[in-house]
């Protein structure tokens, strides 16, 4: 092996496949030897054998390849967790070379367990501040499905597998697996609830009700996100300096907002609206900004063509608000 290769090429190391790519890169640079790879391979085989035994209560020695692949991915996910917690890839390679793999694995399990507890704790907080909207998928996800996903998370056999949730987030969780995905979902939902808490509960219910009525669906069964339903209304209300916590807008409000923003170009409008989002006191500022940025092109387009009313949810001009919406 050449002594010239001593630097890890970080572009070859992938977070989503950390242990494997670290091993490959460690071997390429000579920081790891074939004997290290051999030791890891034997250890992996022992882990899978152990999992097969546990899963079958010691009554089977073999499994379908697909099952073994899930077990292998699970073991690697735990190792990845521990190795990623080290500061640098070089430290991770050193750990692969010098640390007992059982210890790395156990430490990885401990970390995942902590994430599991974090998710459970955050879920309790998210539940306490639920928006008063009788949407079934929202309530079922918060009251039942998330608890089940957290409780059933299996770091032994399927650590890499997260869960699917019925309620759509304003910013879907992407590129995360296992407990990270579940935790990110809970965290986002908590941030969304925290944002909604800043607004009048009745007005949230009214806005969601109007939105559903316009789409001819029931609030109870609609596939909708409450945060995104109220966000633009919150933005325009704040821009127009309506009372704190109000969300209700009429067509006339929309026209005023349009007229106020009309003299500016896109960049200036973006700056003005961004400063409003930065002023929001509810929710997580980063989450709010990310969501704002995701809707910004549509918002600017609507302002450009005087179509802001299509981006907000307007209460009827006759002022009549369906009692059903307020009685929640």
């Amino acid at each position: 092996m050449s002594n010239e290769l001593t630097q890890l090429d970080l572009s070859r190391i992938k977070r989503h496949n950390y242990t494997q790519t670290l091993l490959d890169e460690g071997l390429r640079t000579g920081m790891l030897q074939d004997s290290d790879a051999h030791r890891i391979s034997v250890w992996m085989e022992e882990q899978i054998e152990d999992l097969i035994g546990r899963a079958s209560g010691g009554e089977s020695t073999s499994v379908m390849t697909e099952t073994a692949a899930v077990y292998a991915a699970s073991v690697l996910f735990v190792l990845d967790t521990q190795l990623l917690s080290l500061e640098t890839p070089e430290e991770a390679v050193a750990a692969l070379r010098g640390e007992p793999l059982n210890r790395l694995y156990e430490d990885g399990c401990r970390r995942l367990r902590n994430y599991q507890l974090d998710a459970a704790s955050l879920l309790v907080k998210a539940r306490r501040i639920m928006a008063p909207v009788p949407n079934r998928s929202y309530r079922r996800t918060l009251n039942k499905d998330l608890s089940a996903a957290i409780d059933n998370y299996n770091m032994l056999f399927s650590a890499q597998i997260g869960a699917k949730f019925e309620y759509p987030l304003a910013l879907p969780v992407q590129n995360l697996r296992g407990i990270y995905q579940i935790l990110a979902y809970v965290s986002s939902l908590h941030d969304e609830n925290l944002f909604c808490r800043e607004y009048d509960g009745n007005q949230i219910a009214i806005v969601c009700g109007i939105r559903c009525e316009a789409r001819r669906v029931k609030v109870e069964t609609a596939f909708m996100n409450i945060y995104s339903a109220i966000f633009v209304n919150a933005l325009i209300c704040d821009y127009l300096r309506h009372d704190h916590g109000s969300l209700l807008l009429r067509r006339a409000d929309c026209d005023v907002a349009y007229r106020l923003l009309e003299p500016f170009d896109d960049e200036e409008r973006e700056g003005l609206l961004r400063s409003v989002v930065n002023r929001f006191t509810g929710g997580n500022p980063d989450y709010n900004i990310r969501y704002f940025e995701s809707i910004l092109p549509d918002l600017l387009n609507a302002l450009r063509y005087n179509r802001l009313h299509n981006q907000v949810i307007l209460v009827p001009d006759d002022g009549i608000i369906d009692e059903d919406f307020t009685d929640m």
Partner: protein
Amino acid sequence: MDNSLTNFNLTGSGGALTEVRVQRELAAVNDEIEETGIVITEPMAKALAEVRAQALKDTGRFEAGAGALTKIIRLFSPTGYISQSDAEETFSELLSMFYYAKSETKDAATDDRLLEAMLDAFENRCFGDLELLRGRELEAMIRRINRGDGVGIDDSDNYSTGFAGSGSDGSDGSDDSDDGSNDVM
């Protein structure tokens, strides 16, 4: 050496590393089957390890050691139907059948139950005839397991797929024509 951890060994044999382990485990069985007159020689162990790897691959299974093969050798060697000259071929066939049945039944039967049923059929209904075991008994066994009727060697061996009442008619499990007459549907 194959350094792929995610795909490592999952197509069956586990490479040279596992083959050495399998051969070692097979050699260790010799003490247990000493009285049968069958000896697992080094070339036989090597050949069986290769057959095992291929059988796992063919049936889409993974196994870390030689667990199933050593069980087969221990269980079938004393039957009197296997001699030193055909031991390698017989054990190879039995192992392939075993993995095949495990996969075809989606692991519904435990190793021991399946092997006991295979042994029962091998000794009492096939009289050592492997073709009969594979062509008739094994398929019937697979159908019974997939119906939830157990492997068919006693009445207590029902599986939790909603057919607990069937298979308790006192039959010895050999009468399975799969004509649907036994299906409880």
